[in-house]
């Protein structure tokens, strides 16, 4: 394999792709969505006018921390019973009930229970902002594992539930955005790069030049990888607070983007026209990003079906690495992704050689 040839093809494609308006839009769309997410779920330092009703008889460190956050307004109540009513009355983002001996329990390694009321009259974004603040402040009390269990309760409901407060937007959105980014680049841009070479007959030129078929494929893959890495890096940089384990997350993301680029190359090797790519790649993109959707309370059959989509393993591995988990299951997922990458690249080479002859 000549890296000079691979680099020449990738360099040409990197420049040529951004001159193609269609490809440019495909590259910039996930980036725009990522920046939008940043605006929707900002960091704590950027939060504005967050009002929380607190009942804190023991004068805990947690509430002191909350008080120190700029633009955080705390409304104190004299009893646990009044907290919920005060949330509704003051239209606060939420309420917090801290047990009297909270700091001592945390220091003793116990997991004291905090009751957090969430005002579900607020929109999903505001709820998510409140949720992010609370989770981060609790996590900041000590290193992992979390020192306290947050018991979320919607003020209009009487019973607590694990999904109260809605979905954690940032946790849900990041895998979706990463997959969308890689999908747009890998499953849309990469096949178009390959199909355009066939459609415009420039592939004939490439294959009469010293470039070998494997080098052409590698050049296209490198283009997809470079764009995915660039956009993926921006995506992670703006959501860096959500990354629990950087080395594992980086490895997972590298394997994930290689998988999707390989799928894109396979589509590019099977299709002959840009119209075919535009038609089928959108469908493929939808299938590829499906595992990143939150199927809350969905039937088990759907979960089983997801396992037939290779990106399911990427999403699961990404969620685990973002959460800082280093479980054997994560390595199993990564192995599945690696296997899919190898199989797909073999299929691409076979399909291209077959077409060439």
């Amino acid at each position, binding site marked *: 394999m000549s890296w000079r040839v691979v680099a020449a093809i990738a360099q*040409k494609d990197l420049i040529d792709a951004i001159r193609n308006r269609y490809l440019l839009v495909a590259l910039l769309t996930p980036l725009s969505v990522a920046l939008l997410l940043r605006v929707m779920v900002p960091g704590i330092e950027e939060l504005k006018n967050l009002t929380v009703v607190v009942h804190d008889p023991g004068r805990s460190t947690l509430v002191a921390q909350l008080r120190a956050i700029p633009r955080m307004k705390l409304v104190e109540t004299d009893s646990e019973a009044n907290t919920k009513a005060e949330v509704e009355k003051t239209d606060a983002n939420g309420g917090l009930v801290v047990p009297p001996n909270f700091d001592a329990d945390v220091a003793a390694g116990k997991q004291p229970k905090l009751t957090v009321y969430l005002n579900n009259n607020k929109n999903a974004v505001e709820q998510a902002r409140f949720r992010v603040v609370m989770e981060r402040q609790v996590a900041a009390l000590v290193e992992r594992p979390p020192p306290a269990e947050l018991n979320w309760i919607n003020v209009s409901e009487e019973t607590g539930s694990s999904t109260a407060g809605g979905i954690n937007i940032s946790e849900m959105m990041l895998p979706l955005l990463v997959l969308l980014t890689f999908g747009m680049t890998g499953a849309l841009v990469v096949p178009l790069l390959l199909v355009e070479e066939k459609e*415009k007959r420039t592939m*004939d030129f490439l294959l009469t030049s010293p470039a070998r078929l494997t080098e052409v494929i590698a050049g296209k893959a490198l283009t997809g990888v470079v764009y995915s890495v660039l956009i993926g890096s921006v995506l992670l940089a703006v959501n860096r607070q959500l990354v629990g384990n950087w080395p594992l997350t980086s490895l997972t993301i590298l394997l994930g983007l290689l998988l999707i680029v390989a799928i894109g190359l396979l589509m590019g090797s099977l299709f002959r026209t840009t119209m075919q790519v535009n038609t089928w790649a959108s469908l493929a993109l939808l299938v590829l990003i499906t595992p990143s959707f939150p199927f809350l309370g969905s039937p088990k059959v759907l979960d089983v079906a997801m396992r037939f989509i290779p990106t399911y393993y990427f999403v699961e591995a990404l969620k685990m690495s973002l959460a800082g988990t280093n479980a054997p299951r994560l390595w199993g997922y990564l192995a599945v992704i690696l296997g899919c990458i190898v199989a797909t690249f073999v299929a691409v080479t076979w399909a291209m050689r077959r077409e060439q002859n």
Partner: protein
Amino acid sequence: MNSIEVDGLSRTFSGLQAVDRISFTVAAGEVFGFLGHNGAGKTTTIRMLSGQLRPTAGTARVAGCDVTIEQERLRPLVGVVSEHQNLYERMSARENLAFAARLYGAPLARIDEVLQQVDLLDRAKDNVQHYSNGMKQRLLIARALLHRPQIIFLDEPTRGLDPVVGREIRRLVTELATQGVTIFLTTHYMEEADELCRRVAFLSEGRIVALDTPENLKLAHGQRSVNATLDTGQTLTIALDDEAAGKQLEELVSGGRLRTLHSTEATLEEVFIQIAGRGLSE
């Protein structure tokens, strides 16, 4: 010394015989014409000889390389101008050539030389999508010349071009031939082949049905004749291959009745029709 040696070369696509046991040689520095109808197998032959397509049977050596097993050694030795204008349209001429130079490992300084050679230096920064067909064709030739190949395959290089640009391309081909580059040319235009090629091969349904110099083909297959205009205004056409032609001409000249006398030769087109059964444009 031969640049191209082909022996019994064949190619089949899903049972269809595109090229059927063709054999020929092309000498170094020769301009060789490969003529035939659409679908006769010209482009398939070029694709096999340039290492893009594996032959089903037979052997071919191009620039000393076996096209089946030495494709990697072969590719830097040949240049191909495709029948399609396969340029990167969103890139400038210079960018197209720079990309080709990187692929071939050719020096970037060569870009200006070839742009000068095809008279595109002043438009080098323009995007190719703004070029006329003639300019694109010249750029294709520049790209094929960039790495100084020994052999250039030109697949219909003047098709669809206006006569002035066609003449410019023919001038380029002649210039390359004088520099010692072997040219393998396919064309629909018989006059072009007649003007440029030392030898031509007629291809019909995948087979070579004639191969010789244009002159010999015309002599062997065409009709030579003389058109005579008499002082009465009457015109006569006398076929020179007829045995009685000499006596008839002698009578005309000695009889003092002759006003003008013009010889006519068969064209390559007529020879092709006679051999292949129909013209290239049919």
